[in-house]
């Protein structure tokens, strides 16, 4: 009998079960349930007992019975030793223990004698826990943003832990924050401005970048290597060092508070990466196709329009989505260049909302949802393209 794998298994699995149980408890608390004790130690002991009995019973009784009976016993003991909670909470505990038992159903004393079994167990539970952990830390802020936009400031101050949505309210009451930001704070206009700026940036960037990328990828000219390295170097200079000179020049030219000004700056800052991404793709197109085009008497304009663009639509889509994301999320330049509410973009408008300490936070969060939702939807829908754009361009960010 080797004790090391057994001890490691017991320790890791019990910690895992207790942690998942605690996360469930935290989530239940955030739905307004009044629970005040984690009681980590006692639950750990209980989990230890479950793990121990699972491994000792092993294959001695029918799998199905084992998987069904042990979690039930576990849940009843859990209910007995923890604070009283509503039935849905305890059903959750039952489901968690069911999942856990199912996971370790094949573990028994002989399994624990295999090679590297302790490492495997650690990796197994670690990755299981990591899935829950990553999902929780990533989604929770988004959930908080979403729920807060449906709540009232007073309710939030009274009980910050109640993050449930009250579905009994009628629709106009439910969406009140959204109605207010569109009616009082003029968010319709900001959505319009943001869309114009983002889509405009995408179009202008593509118009400038496609010919330039074609030249870098295909044509020979003096200073080509210099140009392609300087594209990367220029790309690494951050917006913050450009801001003061651009601010002074734009003030003198009267380009501040104008969509044109933003378009110029966004295009110029995204151009290097767009050229870099596109030229890499253009190089992969077989040159013979272009030669055939040349034979047909096409000039470079015809070749770009009729051959290059149709063949590289996926790459162009990646670049377009990446540039759109950059322009939609951009904050620094819109903060510096826009101080007239008439020309605000969404990001700048939300920042402006916080300038007034009196603004209820549900409005702020409703605004945040309005700016976040489109970009997340676009991301989920075009994930393939955006991911390849991100991988190519994400040296920046």
């Amino acid at each position, binding site marked *: 009998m080797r004790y090391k794998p057994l001890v490691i298994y017991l320790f890791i699995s019990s910690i895992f079960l207790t942690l998942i149980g605690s996360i469930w408890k935290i989530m239940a608390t955030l739905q307004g349930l009044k629970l005040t004790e984690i009681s980590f130690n006692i639950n750990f002991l209980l989990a230890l007992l479950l793990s121990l009995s699972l491994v000792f019973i092993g294959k001695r009784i029918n799998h199905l019975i084992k998987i069904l009976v042990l979690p039930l016993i576990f849940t009843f003991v859990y209910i007995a030793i923890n604070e009283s909670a509503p039935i849905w909470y305890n059903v959750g505990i039952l489901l968690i223990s069911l999942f856990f038992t199912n996971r370790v159903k094949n573990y028994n004393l002989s399994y624990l004698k295999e090679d590297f079994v302790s490492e*495997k167990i650690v990796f197994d539970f670690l990755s299981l826990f990591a899935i829950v952990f990553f999902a929780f830390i*990533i*989604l929770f802020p988004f959930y908080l943003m979403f729920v807060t936009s449906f709540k009232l400031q007073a309710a939030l101050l009274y009980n910050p832990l109640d993050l449930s949505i009250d579905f009994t309210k009628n629709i106009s009451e439910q969406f009140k924050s959204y109605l207010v930001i569109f009616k009082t704070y003029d968010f319709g206009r900001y959505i319009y401005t943001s869309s114009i700026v983002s889509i405009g940036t995408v179009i202008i960037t593509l118009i400038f970048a496609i010919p330039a990328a074609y030249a870098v990828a295909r044509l020979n000219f003096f200073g080509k290597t210099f140009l392609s390295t300087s594209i990367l170097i220029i790309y690494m200079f951050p917006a913050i060092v450009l801001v003061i000179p651009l601010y002074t020049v734009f003030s*003198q030219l009267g380009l501040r508070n104008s969509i044109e000004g933003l378009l*110029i700056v966004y295009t*110029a800052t995204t151009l290097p990466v767009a050229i870099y991404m596109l030229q890499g793709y253009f190089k992969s197109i077989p040159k013979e196709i272009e030669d055939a085009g040349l034979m047909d008497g096409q000039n470079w304009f015809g070749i770009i329009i009729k051959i290059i663009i149709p063949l590289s639509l996926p790459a162009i889509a990646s670049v377009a989505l990446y540039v759109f994301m950059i322009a939609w999320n951009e904050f620094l330049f819109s903060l510096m260049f826009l101080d007239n509410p008439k020309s605000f973009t969404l990001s700048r408008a939300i920042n402006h909302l*916080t300038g007034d300490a009196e603004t209820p*936070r549900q409005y702020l969060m409703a605004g945040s949802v309005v700016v976040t939702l489109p970009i997340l939807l676009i991301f989920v829908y075009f994930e393939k393209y955006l991911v390849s754009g991100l991988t190519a361009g994400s040296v920046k960010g």
Partner: protein
Amino acid sequence: MNDTLSKIEKRTAYTLLLPAVFLVFAIVLFPIFANIWISFKEVQLKDIRIPEPRAKKIVKSIPEDKTKLKIVYRLRNSSLIEDINNIKFSDSLPRNIEPVELDSRCEFKSKKIKCDFGNWEAKYRENFEIIIQNINNEVIDKNTIKSQKPKLSGDADNILLTTKFTLKNFKQVFNENEFLDLLLTTFYFTFFGTVGAIIFGMFAAQLVNQKFYGRTFMRSILLFPYVGPVVALAYTWTLLLDPNSGTLNALLVNFGIIDKPINLLGQKYMTLNLLGFDIKLRLALTTVIMFEIWRYFPLAFLFILARLQAVPKDLYEAAEVDGAGPLRKFINITLPQITAILSILFMIRFIWNFNKFEDIFLLTGGASGTRTLPINVYQQGFAVSNIGMGSAVSIVIVMLLIIFMIIYFKLIGKRANEI
């Protein structure tokens, strides 16, 4: 023949490149050099408007005589510090209308009042009056007079274009006793933000590289923090960490882990007692670093995952035959395969985190010990309104950046294309 072809090719290349190169030069490269110019000047935010002569036209009727009108021009120099020279004024009058009497500086010619006001010093103001009359003794319509706007022109020094230079800004930047602290904070933030993001990204990539139910879903949501707009996410975090009604503090208090709420974003130091040692933790800075890691580990994740998926599967199979466990496989196969990408990621993310502005600005505004160099550019330039100082700080950033880039290209420049 070949010669002309290559000439055509060159010309085509330059035509295709010109628009993009011109735009990037104007908006990215020019400001970097302009920074050098501005950083040697004493410029305040209010000085950057070009001084211009202004006139506000007010038309008043004269009750005793309906055929006459009085026009008052409120003249002023818009600048508070710069003089304007050689000021020319002109305003036109409708037909049949002429001024009764004119200032000696002015003349009336072909329906136009033209004046030569000479020089106005800074803050100059004057009320300039003329009385006009209709030569046919008819009533003058006030609105036609009003609708005509006077034209003014003058020469003024643009403070940005003068050749007066000073070293004051740089002296101030380096002599400020906070400069070292500023630099340290920046490096602290950059280093831990980068390393943390890479470690988290490595775990996440290792995770998603396995097969499990809901893997594609996991892969998409892992990128959410990076894809979401920084403004929305930063304010959500502010709400989450708020000491009075933030969810995190409320949770910790609820479960009795802490006695009273901690102001995670507004408290500079927190003393931790660890194994009998008192450790002074830079609390707000740590929180900001946490946000930074949360927001940027998806990028590291994306890169490392791409690399992991390219590792040949037979390597692992061979290792299994040799009797290697998961840990051995990770250390001896996975890690060597991803060291290249890790070092590239570290350099690139280091440079980018070094320049991070929005995240810190939105979370703390640079207060409670989170002032980094980029935040300082903003504070000097726009909060203190000293444009020259802001530029000087930008120059310091650019210098450090160039050093980083030289190191980067020396160390891994050639390998960067392998990604």
